[in-house]
């Protein structure tokens, strides 16, 4: 097992004014640049009579928009949350696929005995997924407060009308809301990190042919995790704007 190189934390490449720049941070910026480029190329020539590429993108986005509208039940809300949810999906999906490009995790610098890859899959760093989870968490809570009003939203958690049982259920609701931070970030991190290790193990033991189906499976996992992250965001926003029971 000596050939297996597994590190939990992202490696520091260099630091700017004391701020460490890790390889996952570099990957995040590369992915953002690629997405910006793709957005520019697709949005450069938007016409009223769409071409093939524009047509495909429009169909895709229309499908997603209709789904969001159906779930939230209002066009105004869908228009408000569509950019966030689709951005989350595109970023996570692109970051997960980026892992499978040939130069990622293989080109790097050597520090004595240690090899530090220049680029490393973004979601194998807990900081990245935790940042995404924080964005989602704050969005959900603020949406709940804005749509329902502060007192009404908090009456979901501090329930004084429903007796002891109601109060306990409110408490559980509160804890499970906080636990979303953990579950959101660790779900994405765990899946992608485990996938990377699975591929590394397969490459170390059976380098011939076996890694190919596993990598195929991992691209599928990357798609599913991106979809789950954005779907759950949507579902929790839906829960946050639903009126509390028992009134």
């Amino acid at each position, binding site marked *: 097992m000596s050939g297996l190189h597994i590190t939990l934390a992202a490696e520091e490449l260099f630091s700017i004014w004391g701020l460490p720049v890790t390889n996952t941070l570099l990957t995040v910026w590369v992915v953002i640049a690629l997405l910006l480029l793709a957005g520019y190329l697709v949005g450069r020539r938007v016409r009223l009579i769409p071409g093939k590429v524009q047509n495909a993108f429009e169909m895709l986005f229309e499908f997603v928009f209709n*789904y969001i509208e*159906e*779930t939230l039940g209002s066009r105004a809300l869908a228009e408000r949350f569509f950019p966030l949810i689709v951005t989350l999906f595109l970023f996570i999906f692109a970051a997960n696929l980026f892992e499978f490009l040939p130069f990622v995790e293989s080109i790097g610098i050597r520090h004595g005995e240690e090899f530090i890859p220049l680029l490393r899959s973004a979601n194998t760093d807990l900081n990245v997924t935790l940042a995404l989870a924080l964005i989602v968490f704050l969005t959900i809570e603020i949406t709940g407060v804005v749509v329902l009003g502060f007192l009404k939203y908090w009456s979901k958690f501090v329930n004084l009308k429903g007796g002891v049982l109601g109060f306990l259920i409110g408490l559980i609701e509160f804890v*499970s809301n906080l*636990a979303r931070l*953990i*579950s959101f970030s*660790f*779900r994405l991190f*765990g899946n992608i990190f485990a996938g990377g290790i699975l591929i590394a193990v397969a490459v170390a033991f059976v380098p011939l042919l076996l890694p190919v189906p596993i990598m195929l499976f991992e691209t599928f996992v990357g798609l599913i995790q991106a979809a*789950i992250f954005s*779907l*759950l965001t*949507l*579902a929790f926003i*839906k*829960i946050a704007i639903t009126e509390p029971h028992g009134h």
Partner: protein
Amino acid sequence: MDIESAKIIGMALAVGLGVIGPGIGIGLVVGKALEAMGRNPEASGQIQTTMFIGVAFTEALAIFALVIGFILKYS
């Protein structure tokens, strides 16, 4: 047994045992959702959304096991 090996064994046990329950749970959730979709295909969209929420809540327990594993290993 020194403390390092005990930690590693504890981590493996926590994660390994911790994912059994959620594994069964997710199987039940998805199985029932598929059953419902088979009976009433028009409602599949709504069932799917609810299923994903259910899966997320169930899976969160497995994630807690993973977190406990990390805490054991790195403290």
